[in-house]
């Protein structure tokens, strides 16, 4: 071992110089930067605040206005124009839940299938695949009323000719949210690292085995979240449903194929809200609260799923 040698004058100078230098660099943030930093953070905070305030105001107003009508009758009783004190949303709620079930049954295989094709099989140097991709992105931005017209022309009448039944409404909503599901599923599939696919293929797995056993299971949380968010959107849609038959004031429980009409929560709320009398306004507000509860339940489900199964790569 070498003996200890006290630092020379030169070393001490050099060290002191370096220290002073470092201190100067670390200690002096330019004033302009400080101001810009704070202003920007403030603006971002404001944006969040405005968004939250809007939501809070809506909730508060709905709860306050609907308070007299909040009760179990909301989910157990059919709507009524005579006995408004005991009226509810039962057929509309059942209609909405049934449609959700059908929408899920339709969009999961179609959306995930399309996403698998685009991510795992399609050669995206080909123009037709790029065209499909571009179209899906555009479709996600098409106004929902257009889907209503499509549903009316192709599902209620036209080639499918189903008539004004609940299933026709469900198919229309499924088409409406399909692009969202495809995009979310693609994201989830793309998030699975290529090294996982390589590992599987290197073991002699086929492409389908790799997709089916490795990629899809790893993508499930993302896919499920996308599906629930898409369904949340579907549940709130009114415009397309008005075109495909959900306009009637339904007082009995709907069936998927029943030709006597069906309703959905937002449509029923719309029905009440268009009437001028006070008690109907109250019912509309109570309906909004009911719908928000359903939506919140579904979104909590999405968050729970994501946290439960999320894969950290």
């Amino acid at each position, binding site marked *: 071992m070498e003996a200890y040698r006290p630092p020379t004058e030169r070393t001490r100078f050099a060290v002191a110089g370096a220290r002073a230098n470092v201190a100067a660099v670390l200690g002096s943030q330019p004033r302009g930067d400080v101001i810009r930093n704070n202003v920007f953070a403030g603006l971002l905070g404001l944006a969040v605040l405005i968004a939250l305030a809007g939501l809070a105001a809506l909730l508060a107003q709905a709860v306050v206005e609907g308070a007299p009508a909040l009760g179990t009758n909301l989910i157990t009783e059919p709507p009524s124009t005579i006995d408004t004190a005991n009226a509810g949303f039962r057929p509309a709620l059942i209609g909405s839940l049934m449609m959700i079930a059908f929408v899920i049954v339709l969009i999961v295989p179609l959306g995930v299938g399309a996403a698998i094709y685009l991510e795992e099989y399609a050669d995206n140097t080909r123009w037709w695949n790029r065209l499909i991709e571009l179209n899906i992105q555009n479709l996600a931005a098409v106004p929902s009323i257009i889907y209503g017209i499509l549903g009316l022309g192709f599902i209620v009448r036209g080639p499918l000719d189903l008539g004004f039944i609940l299933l026709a409404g469900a198919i229309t909503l499924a088409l409406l949210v399909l692009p969202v599901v495809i995009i979310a599923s693609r994201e989830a599939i793309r998030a699975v690292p290529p090294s996982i696919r390589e590992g599987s293929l290197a073991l002699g797995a086929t492409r389908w*085995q790799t997709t089916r056993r490795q990629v899809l299971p790893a993508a499930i949380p993302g896919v499920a979240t996308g599906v629930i968010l898409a369904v949340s959107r579907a549940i709130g849609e009114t415009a397309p449903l008005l075109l495909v038959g959900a306009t009637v004031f339904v007082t009995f429980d709907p069936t998927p194929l029943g030709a006597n009409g069906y309703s959905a929560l937002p449509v029923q709320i719309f029905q009440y809200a268009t009437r001028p009398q006070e008690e109907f306004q109250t019912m509309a507000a109570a309906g909004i609260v009911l719908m928000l509860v359903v939506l919140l339940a579904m979104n909590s489900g999405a968050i729970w799923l994501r946290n439960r199964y999320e894969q950290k790569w």
Partner: protein
Amino acid sequence: MTQEHPSIAIAAQARGHHAPPMSREKVFEIEDLSVHYGDKPAVKNIGMDILHKNITALIGPSGCGKSTLIRCLNRMNDLIPSARVDGRLLYHGEDLYGPNVDPIQVRKLIGMVFQKPNPFPKSIYDNIAFGPRIVGMAGDMDEIVEGALRRAAIWDEVKDRLNDNAFGMSGGQQQRLCIARCIAVEPDVILMDEPCSALDPISTGKIEDLMTELKEDYSIVIVTHNMQQAARVSDMTAFLIVELTADERERWGEIVEYDETEKIFTNPSDQRTEDYVTGKVG
């Protein structure tokens, strides 16, 4: 016969083996092989015979095409649309790129371990069982899994947590799990592309010991940037280098020298090999 160069960094006694290659049976015969990505060459004029039940090391500077070459051996390059392989590559005398050869079947016989450990996001047990299941291996799955983990010298570390997610293991354990996963399907050849580059010296040592054990039954081809590692574990070594056209428009990898590891590291015939293995360049 082995004349010691004073400049060689690795002392002969530090190397794990001194015996000549154990077997002379050829597992791969490569003749005039070249690979292009698009119209750019990656490797050219590759000719070498890889011996059965031996460890063959590929060394050379970055970008000389070691990964490209090793990925030809189990047709992983088929997965890159722009890659094109020309020349002859025989596997036990059969043309690996012949018209009737199914790359899926090839990969069942010729497994691969990658640079970055890539366990599946599943339990340790399912990581191992995946391969045997898709290959449709007969026998008790528990025994297959235990056997593979034992052979990969990781059984004792994981036997109590087979149902835990493989992502909870250390990097070195993950890499040995990947090796176990590879040998679970009982391949004939194991290809390893820089299997230890993400690992600490102790894990690296474990994997090197493992390789020496595995070569009793398997042919192993390993790409490594670690000269000591190549010298320690391999029987044969190929040194590749990047060649340039005069105008430097094109660059590709070529084999400079391929010989017994002993010879490459103690008495190379090419000056460039000597410079590289002694650390003068690269």
